[in-house]
């Protein structure tokens, strides 16, 4: 063992380990680091937006640059921050919750991550190469097809590459949850976070192809002279809006459902009660996923689809309030009469309920198609979607990080700093966005880089900017918390919260193979079932045996790097045909790596049962 420990201490060895890892726990950490990095970049862009709007007719940034930071804030936060941070939690937790040793396709898991990262880097490379995309995160045609420079091209290629990664990750989780559940883990015994991951993966599978197709059409319009969205050539720009929102609406449920899953894990644990209405919660999750595909045109009420289409989509949208309401009440009933312990994870979860309900209420207001003509493209919409996305997804990610940090890193995040983060962020959030409802109702339009003085908008915008600074302080305190905990925190047991689900049945640190023996699941809240019968551990479902584990591989990194290079080739070949060389080189690298993967047998390795007691794979 001493030799392996010595090997692991070198920085190069650690780097190589993470570049080649196919271990879901390490990929979760990679998602967390890169998602956190993009979250900070998106946050900086948000700060620039709010500083620009602190006073009337400010000139902190120019109009063109404002368009770029506005576009990149939305795109980064949705695709490069929220999505990977959710995948971080899924990777860290889902295989443990179902009693599996890894995901179904560990190689693809790694490929999904590297594709996402290189897509995100390609998108952000645009800052240094003549300007970022500036057509809004929705990239509506014809604004996106006619936008000068290469900004929107970076948007197309960057999202295409990272979107492929997301699709791969989604399929991987679907197969994992279908096939790799431990004996006795029936569908109706799955922890709710796993259930939401399952539904979300199905949504990814069905929604992302619409984005892929849309981006391809846009790419051909911009780079290869086609006219899908060009009315002069017989195209129709509304097609883009439909394709984008057929993807885009399920996308917001892809973001929020895992957050719902996190709260459904945190609340029962710290209320010491089983989740109220588990069956109803599962049903509501599936129903939200199902309805999520029938409401996309509520983003397009003012396009002119006609009263019949608007009414159908308005009613379908309002219907989503029913399963969401079921969930809200079930969380409240879970708390009812519980032995509630308040800590950072719990604070985020408790504050989520009223915050998200506010966002849901404005959602029903916006769903009324006739009224939407008044709200459309005002700050009312901005306030609404920040209430559901920050108040839902970001609160959920913070709650999940505080809750699962001891599982991922073996230490509990500092409670004092956690509470400071919560209160500054929570107050800052409401200061920033609550006032924006009224700015919107007073008629302040979205996306404008300045507003005029003495129109009743000055104070509101000033308050909003103050709130944004508080949120920034909260985020910085969280970063300090991570550093303090990592350097000074004490190692805890494998089950610091007296948890209910399988992931807390594992010792700390989590072994490479997760479970020495696959556990036997005997009910919902598998670990709790054992605890009520006086046992400390899970009953094994198999005798101790050799453990088969996948081999590490650098190929996913190389494949993604190839697409990254090819992306630049596609973007610049319109200026100079010799850039096609980059396309050939990049695609050659990717296809070559795929060829190697196909012809080279990689059957994984075994950890022998004799070595398990000696600490192999820890």
């Amino acid at each position, binding site marked *: 063992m001493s030799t392996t420990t010595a090997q692991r201490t070198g920085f190069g060895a650690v780097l190589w380990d993470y570049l080649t890892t196919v271990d879901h726990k390490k990929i979760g950490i990679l998602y967390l680091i890169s998602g956190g990095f993009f979250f900070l970049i998106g946050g900086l862009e948000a700060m620039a937006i709010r500083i620009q709007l602190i006073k009337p007719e400010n000139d902190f940034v120019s109009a063109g640059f404002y368009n770029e930071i506005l576009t990149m804030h939305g795109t980064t936060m949705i695709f490069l921050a929220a999505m990977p941070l959710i995948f971080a939690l899924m990777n860290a937790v889902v295989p443990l919750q179902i009693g599996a040793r890894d995901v179904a396709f560990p190689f693809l898991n790694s490929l999904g991550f590297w594709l996402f990262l290189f897509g995100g880097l390609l998108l952000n490379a645009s800052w240094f190469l003549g300007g970022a995309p500036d057509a809004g995160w929705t990239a509506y045609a014809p604004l996106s097809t006619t936008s000068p420079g290469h900004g929107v091209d970076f948007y197309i290629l960057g999202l295409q590459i990272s979107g492929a990664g997301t699709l791969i990750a989604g399929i991987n989780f679907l197969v994992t949850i279908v096939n790799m559940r431990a004996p006795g883990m029936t569908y109706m015994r799955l922890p709710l976070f796993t259930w939401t991951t399952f539904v979300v993966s199905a949504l990814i599978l*069905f929604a992302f192809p619409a984005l892929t197709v849309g981006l391809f059409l846009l790419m051909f319009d911009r780079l290869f002279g086609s006219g899908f969205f060009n009315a002069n050539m017989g195209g129709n720009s509304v097609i883009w809006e439909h394709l984008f929102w*057929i993807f885009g609406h399920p996308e917001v449920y892809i973001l929020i459902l895992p957050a719902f899953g996190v709260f459904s894990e945190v609340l029962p644990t710290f209320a010491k009660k089983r989740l109220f209405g588990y069956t109803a919660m599962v049903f509501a999750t599936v129903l939200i996923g199902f309805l999520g595909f029938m409401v996309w045109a509520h983003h397009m009420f003012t396009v002119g689809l006609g009263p019949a289409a608007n009414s159908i989509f308005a009613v379908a949208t309002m219907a989503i309030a029913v399963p969401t309401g079921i969930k809200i009440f079930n969380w409240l009933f879970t708390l009812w009469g519980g032995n509630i312990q308040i800590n950072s994870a719990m604070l985020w979860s408790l504050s989520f309920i009223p915050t998200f309900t506010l966002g849901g209420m404005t959602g029903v207001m916006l769903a009324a198609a006739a009224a939407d003509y008044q709200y459309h493209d005002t700050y009312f919409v901005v306030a609404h979607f920040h209430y559901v996305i920050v108040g839902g997804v970001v609160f959920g990610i913070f709650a999940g990080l505080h809750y699962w940090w001891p599982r991922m890193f073996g230490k509990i995040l500092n409670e004092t700093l956690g509470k400071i983060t919560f209160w500054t962020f929570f107050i800052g959030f409401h200061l920033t966005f609550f006032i924006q409802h009224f700015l919107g109702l007073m008629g302040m339009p979205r996306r404008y880089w300045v507003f005029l003085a003495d129109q009743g908008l000055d104070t509101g915008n000033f308050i909003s900017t103050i709130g944004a600074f508080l949120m920034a302080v909260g985020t910085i305190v969280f970063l300090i918390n991570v550093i303090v905990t990592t350097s000074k925190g004490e190692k805890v047991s494998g089950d610091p919260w007296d948890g209910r689900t399988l992931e807390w049945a594992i010792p700390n640190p989590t072994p490479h193979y997760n479970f020495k023996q696959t556990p036997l699941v005997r009910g919902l809240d598998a670990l709790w079932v054992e605890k009520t019968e006086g046992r400390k551990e899970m009953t094994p479902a198999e005798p101790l045996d050799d453990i088969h584990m996948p081999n590490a591989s650098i190929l996913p990194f190389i494949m993604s790097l190839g697409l990254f290079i090819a992306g630049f080739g596609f973007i610049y070949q319109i200026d100079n045909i010799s850039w096609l060389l980059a396309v050939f080189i990049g695609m050659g690298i990717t296809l070559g790596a795929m060829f190697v993967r196909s012809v080279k047998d990689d059957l994984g390795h075994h950890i022998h049962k004799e070595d398990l007691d000696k600490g192999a794979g820890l």
Partner: protein
Amino acid sequence: MAENTNSVQNELDYHKKKKKEEMKQQVITFALMIVFTIIAFTMVAAGLDKLFVIPIIVVLAIVQVIFQLYYFMHMSHKGHELPAIMMYGGISVAFLTILTFLVLIWW
């Protein structure tokens, strides 16, 4: 002992009967699919009205796909519930998308 042999025999008979049943279904669906194809070709060859021919061919095609999936690819057997759900999910999303494009964009 005699009883035991009997039950094995019964099981064998049961499986034989089930296999026979399945074979019968496959032959029937195979014959039906050939008939459907002949109908489709004859209708086109007979030069009937397009408005009449196209919907019928589409319906016949859908029925044939269902036959194919359920009788030849064994989706009727146990353990195929989840693939069925995923397929119907995907089909309904694709159908909705196409419907939108037909009625909302190219009206």
